[in-house]
């Protein structure tokens, strides 16, 4: 178990943090840029000085150097040494820890095969794709069998398709190795998909630590709700199972088709930033298409605009980029067409 109690960190916006991470758990730290997520990783790994204490399995780590903390840290930029080949990068940690040559070779072979990177083992990082670099960096991080894994937005520099594939790979591997992991992201979908528990951080303070569904359906504070894009939570009056793993739910006057594997649920959360808006009827094969009315423009931020639309007396919060808002060119009380894709509806567990 990892236990962090922080009073203060010089020059960093982090204070009074108290976080317990269980063995084998995937703890996702979520928050906006500059919230202090990476700072917490740097404290756990000992890369920055701090006032407070960090314990690994009851052992105080405050005077233990980063090299001896036995943590694996996957950097956002991967930090692959450009002057070393893929193989040399992976074996770096083993070599400095004086493993013998045979052990190193066996371990590197094992990892390159696990990550499917045998074919690039003798290449330098320069010519590798983002996905390949990520795999190499992950292999290097795991090479020395660290007890704790720290991942700093490892998928943010990848294209969405590669990120999806690697996310699934990583999730499976983390469960298989049962390695305690702290994962930093600002991507909510990523957080919900990966986390055993989520810690929401705002301005260096942990606002809530809960299971992903609780964060969504029972936010402790308004700012947690706001950080998640103010999703609309609807109570379901009726749930009817359909074929192909779908269900039809009725929430007041609104009827929606959602993905459901048969688990009972009584609420749905509609992620505001996934809803699609159009001035004209939406023609594509998307379920949950409605004609709505724009009832309020709640906030116009630097890059995001928050709106409230009404469909058959049910109000939904919608977030969209400022560019999209300007392109839309629509006024309050005008009609608008919306589509709520499957991926934007999350069902609660009863």
């Amino acid at each position: 178990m990892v236990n962090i109690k922080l009073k203060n960190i010089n020059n960093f916006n982090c204070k009074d943090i108290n976080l317990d991470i269980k063995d084998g758990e995937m703890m996702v730290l979520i928050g906006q840029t500059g919230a202090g997520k990476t700072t917490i990783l740097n404290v756990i790994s000992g890369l920055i000085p701090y006032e407070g204490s960090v314990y690994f399995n009851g052992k105080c780590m405050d005077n233990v150097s980063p090299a001896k903390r036995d943590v694996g840290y996957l950097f956002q930029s991967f930090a692959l040494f450009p002057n070393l080949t893929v193989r040399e990068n992976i074996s770096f940690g083993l070599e400095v820890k004086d493993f013998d040559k045979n052990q190193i070779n066996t371990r590197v072979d094992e990892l390159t095969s696990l990550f499917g990177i045998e074919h690039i083992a003798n290449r330098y990082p320069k010519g590798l794709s983002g996905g390949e670099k990520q795999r190499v960096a992950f292999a290097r991080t795991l090479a020395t069998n660290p007890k704790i894994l720290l991942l700093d937005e490892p998928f943010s520099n990848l294209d969405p398709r590669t990120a999806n594939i690697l996310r699934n790979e990583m999730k499976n591997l983390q469960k298989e190795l049962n390695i305690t992991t702290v994962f930093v992201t600002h991507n909510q979908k990523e957080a919900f998909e990966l986390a055993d528990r989520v810690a929401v951080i705002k301005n260096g303070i942990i606002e809530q630590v809960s299971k992903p569904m609780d964060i969504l359906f029972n936010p402790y504070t308004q700012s947690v709700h706001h950080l998640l894009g103010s999703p609309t939570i609807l109570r379901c009056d009726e749930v009817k199972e359909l074929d192909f793993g779908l269900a039809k739910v009725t929430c007041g006057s609104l009827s929606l088709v959602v993905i459901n594997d048969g688990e009972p649920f009584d609420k749905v959360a509609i992620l505001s930033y996934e809803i699609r808006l159009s001035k004209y009827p939406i023609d594509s094969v998307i379920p949950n298409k409605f004609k709505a009315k724009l009832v309020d423009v709640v906030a116009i931020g630097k890059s995001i605009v928050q709106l409230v639309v009404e469909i058959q007396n049910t109000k939904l919060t919608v977030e969209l980029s400022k560019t999209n808002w300007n392109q839309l060119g629509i006024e309050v009380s005008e009609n608008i067409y919306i589509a709520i894709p499957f991926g934007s509806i999350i069902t609660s567990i009863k």
Partner: protein
Amino acid sequence: MNSEQNNYAPKIRGIFSILIFIALWEFSIRLGWMPGNIFFPPFSEVIGEIWEMLFDDLLIDSYKSSFIRVIIGFLVGATSGVIIGIWMGWSQKVYDWTKPIISILYPIPALGWLPLLMLIIGINEVLPVVIIFICSFFPIVYNTVKGIKEVKPEFINAARLLGASDFVILKKVVIPQALPYIFIGLKLESGAAWRTVVAAEMIAIPTGIGALMMRAENLMRIDIILVCLIILSVMCLIFESFFSYLEHRMTGEWN
């Protein structure tokens, strides 16, 4: 085929430009287009002169003097420059202590030290070596510091978290990544060392290529001056190419 042609095209253009330059030099003098051509020999005569002088003790001794000065001065200057540059780049404390001194001394041209050094050292073999040392040391320190400081902290942090000591981090991560910057300094200053030694010999030292040129000027031997200039140009080129080759060998695969 097309890409091969493109690869060779710049080289062919370069060779042609030199050939045209030589042809202009040769024929403008032979055809009497150059004023004062009695003093200025055509290219073919200069080549003939080089050939003759290659067996002449005067040129060989002068060349040897200059060469030894450059080698010793540059080796000491470059080695100490790289070592101190690494130290300054790695340790913030050392950097804070030494940066102001380096900043004050760096802009002074090496030859600017000459009058002072003549008074302190006197006119002897140490003088040109010290001048070349100064000429090489400061720019190489500067470039090395820059190279070390340019290495992103996350590489150092990554290595540290993988269990590496400071020494291993420097040896395997930081210095290799700083090499392209270190080589910029070495390439530029290896040529500059030759230019400086010749200038110093012209002003203050009675032996070497520079001194030979001054004597040739007294005797109005333009051919000897031209031979010395060609040697100077070739030596600058050889030294710079040597470091380019070394850089390519050490960083070409990954950089």
